[in-house]
């Protein structure tokens, strides 16, 4: 069985304070912190490319463990290096000095990207007899954000994550669901070189599309909200997470957020949060849900492979 062995991440050093821009955008501190939930955004350096963010994430992974012999490298991004040709995964492959035998390809998805890419990468590894893979998310929106656009400049941050997939997983993918509403693609798109977002349309989509998918996958798996330890939702905004939690009747302690620390990091938001729980043996069942650009949404259920600490202790005692 192939699953998630480890997750590591990289946050660039640049910070822009949103608190210092309240007057410029005509908003109050309460709205910024209570509704948007992002006191500062993270910005990559001007000389940092998307592939560099991926490489830095691998360096973080290597400080923790040897990733072993990699068979495939996947990068989920919609803001690739240069103009997107060649694919960023090939550039990362080159920078990491990986051998020719390693497969490398990009996946073009936004906020739903991690769930899609996780399922795709796991299937790719298993169907081709490959043991280990690296799945990256790196979508530095600072490349396309107009710094004067209130709808996006206060929200999106740059970050990268890498997920090590392999045969000795801590978490396995139990089930996944995917959906697309292409008729509404213009609600969140790159337009005239910059990022355009119809905030109301994206909010309505998130509030009406996400809950049915979450309920359906839970019901099909025979799980309830109570059976899930953490609901890791894409970090769209503080308000969006709160309202989705309300609709799904998920208690706040099961709805982790990193908006205050890192903002909305697009496809990295889900794995950045998941990184917190990969080694937490008491966290047995996790729901992941990403939604946004496309419009696209995807939900996955993860199950811990390792024994619960108490169960492991009991087994040790019996031996």
């Amino acid at each position: 069985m192939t699953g998630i062995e480890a997750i590591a991440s990289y946050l660039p050093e640049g910070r822009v304070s949103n608190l210092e821009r309240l007057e410029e955008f005509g908003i109050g501190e309460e709205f910024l912190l209570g509704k948007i939930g992002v006191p500062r955004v993270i910005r990559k350096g001007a000389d940092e490319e998307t592939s560099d963010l991926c490489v830095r994430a691998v360096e973080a992974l290597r400080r923790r463990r040897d990733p072993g012999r990699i068979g495939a490298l996947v990068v989920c991004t919609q803001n690739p290096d240069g103009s997107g040709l060649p694919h960023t995964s090939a550039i990362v492959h080159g920078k990491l000095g990986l051998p020719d035998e390693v497969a490398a390809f990009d996946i073009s998805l936004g906020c739903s990207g991690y769930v899609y890419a996780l399922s795709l990468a796991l299937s790719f590894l298993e169907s081709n007899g490959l043991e280990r893979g690296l799945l990256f998310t790196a979508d530095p929106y600072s490349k396309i954000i107009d710094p004067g656009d209130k709808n996006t400049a206060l929200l999106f941050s740059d970050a990268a994550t890498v997920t090590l997939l392999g045969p000795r997983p801590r978490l396995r993918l139990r089930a996944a669901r995917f959906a697309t509403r292409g008729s509404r693609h213009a609600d969140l798109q790159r337009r005239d070189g910059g990022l355009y977002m119809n905030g109301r349309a994206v909010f309505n989509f998130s509030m009406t599309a996400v809950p049915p998918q979450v309920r359906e996958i839970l019901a099909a798996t025979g799980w309830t909200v109570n059976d899930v330890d953490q609901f890791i939702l894409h970090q769209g905004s503080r308000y969006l997470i709160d309202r989705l939690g309300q609709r799904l009747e998920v208690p706040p302690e099961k709805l982790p957020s990193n908006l205050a620390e890192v903002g909305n990091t697009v496809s990295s938001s889900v794995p950045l949060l998941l990184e917190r729980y990969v080694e937490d043996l008491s966290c047995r069942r996790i729901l992941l849900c990403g939604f946004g650009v496309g419009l696209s949404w995807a939900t996955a259920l993860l199950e811990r492979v390792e024994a619960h600490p108490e169960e492991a202790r009991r087994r040790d005692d019996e031996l």
Partner: protein
Amino acid sequence: MSFDAEVARGLFRAAGVKEEVIGKIAVGASLVDAGIDSLDFANVLLTIEERYGVQIPDEQALELTSLGAMAEYVHARLE
């Protein structure tokens, strides 16, 4: 189904708007002045759309600047 200012206040409540803000909303007065921000407003409109099965296009939404205007707009579509 009826839709008047009092029902609208209930929808604001259902949309998670704080009581202190709802208490400041007067029928003909500006919702923004009462403390309704853009996110609350979007959620209230969504709540209305779902409860009453109406669609409120963006250009119409911009005109719903008071509780009275909101009630009038929805009431007209329910007739």
